[in-house]
């Protein structure tokens, strides 16, 4: 199955690049949803064909949360604040893409140095995990709209999830549950923030938060 797993990992990587290169919030949400769906496939593919009930259940649950629930929440947030595009990011979309390729280089370099060696797992797993995390960071740092930052958080979290698989098959679920909780909180908080922000300021640009510093 390593072939299929590789294909999934490559797709995961491409969705990260898609996140970096797209200005439309809807497209980004779709990308992050796709990412969530792909993430659900990873445990199934890497353990194929002996899949325990528990593994299957967790995979399905995480797929539902990441690919359906969270994107739906984000879509609602977008509808409420009525923004469709990331208009003026701090780092342009083309530059983000080029930076993405640089990050891919860095990720593969770091992955080569890390003493992670799980037999039978795709050698792509660790680089893709690190890359997804880095892309998440880049999104958070370089985008202005809060929705895009939430998407960045989700990407970051997806990366951590993949990373978990490199260490062990069962344990990451623990970590994962914790992180999922965090994200839920984050999404809620951001959702509320966005809601309030857009009511107070008619805009969801975090730049304008800076004006609160005095």
């Amino acid at each position, binding site marked *: 199955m390593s072939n299929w797993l590789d294909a999934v990992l*490559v797709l995961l990587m491409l969705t990260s690049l898609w996140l970096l*290169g797209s200005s439309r919030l809807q497209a980004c949400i779709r990308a992050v949803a796709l990412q969530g769906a792909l993430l659900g496939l990873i445990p199934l593919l890497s353990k194929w064909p002996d899949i325990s009930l528990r593994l299957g259940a967790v995979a399905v649950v995480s797929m539902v949360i990441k690919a359906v629930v969270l994107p739906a929440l984000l879509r609602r947030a977008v509808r409420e604040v009525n923004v469709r595009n990331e208009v003026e990011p701090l780092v342009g979309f083309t530059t983000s*893409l080029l930076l993405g390729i640089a990050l891919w280089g860095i990720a593969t370099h770091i992955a080569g140095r890390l003493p992670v060696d799980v037999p039978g797992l795709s050698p792509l797993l660790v680089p893709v995990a690190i890359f997804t995390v880095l892309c998440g960071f880049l999104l958070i740092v370089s985008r202005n709209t809060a929705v895009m930052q939430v998407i960045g958080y989700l990407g970051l979290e997806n990366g951590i999830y993949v990373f978990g698989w490199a260490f062990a098959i069962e344990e990451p679920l623990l970590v994962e549950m914790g992180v999922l909780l965090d994200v839920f909180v984050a999404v809620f908080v951001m959702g509320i923030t966005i809601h309030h922000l857009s009511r107070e300021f008619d805009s969801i640009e975090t730049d304008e938060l800076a004006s609160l510093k005095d």
Partner: protein
Amino acid sequence: MVAPSGLISLALALALAPMMPSIINRTKALFAGRHGQPWLQPYRELWKLLHKGAVYSHTTTPVFFTGPIVGCAAMLVGLLFVPLAGTHPLISFPGDFLLVAYLLGLARFFTVSAALDTGSSFEGMGASREVFFSALAEPALLLALATLAALSGQLSLADIFARIDAGVLASGAGPALLLAAAAMMVVFLAENARIPVDDPNTHLELTMIHEVMVLDHSGPDLAAIQYAACLKMWILGSLLVSVLLPVRSGWLLADLGAGILGLGLLAVATGVVESVMARLRLVRVPQFLIAASILSIVALVLVVR
């Protein structure tokens, strides 16, 4: 290395290249519910142009009519090295794909110079866009070809495509090959002035890229340009078809037949893309091309690791 059997595919290319735009046109007509132009219309146009006189601008210099000549000659020489679906081209040597890519660059240099020679601001605009977009398409093409070279461990097109057969596709290189093919498809559309990068049927000079550059050419010069465009489509199409259609029966005629069928399908696919997609806004085109380079890079990393 010289393979006489390559003469057959060369002759086929020279004879059949104008069929590709014809197929694209018919496909588009089908989608639009029109009858479409006759199948042999491109040949008729070439024939008509070859029998005409020419009009030249006062502004132009010999560079103006050198452009089509160089463009056509570059494509003719390039064809010597391009294999179709695993058959051997007339000549092959390590690094021949670089020569082919740079011959395309040479043709572009002279087409653009000929456009600038007219002194028309519209042609200047088209020239500016042409060099801009193709500069971004070049890494995508070369990195995709480098992926194939790394995958097969060979450095000449003939050897590369001889190694890329159904076995390679099944052995785990599938994702990489598909990514490289996707990048090459983008380059194919961009370099042949197709939607979503350029619209060959647009009527406004301001929005054209390739067409506006050849506005001032007429007669045999225009025939050379149009024929060179067909050959260019054939060259890039052959590379793409050789990746996507890993049929290597070993029989020359069967392979050639499969290759030509593949080119026909590629033309149909191009027609479908033109019918169902809108042209990208000009500011989005660079992103589209950079995305193609990125696909190539990902493919390369998948192969070399």
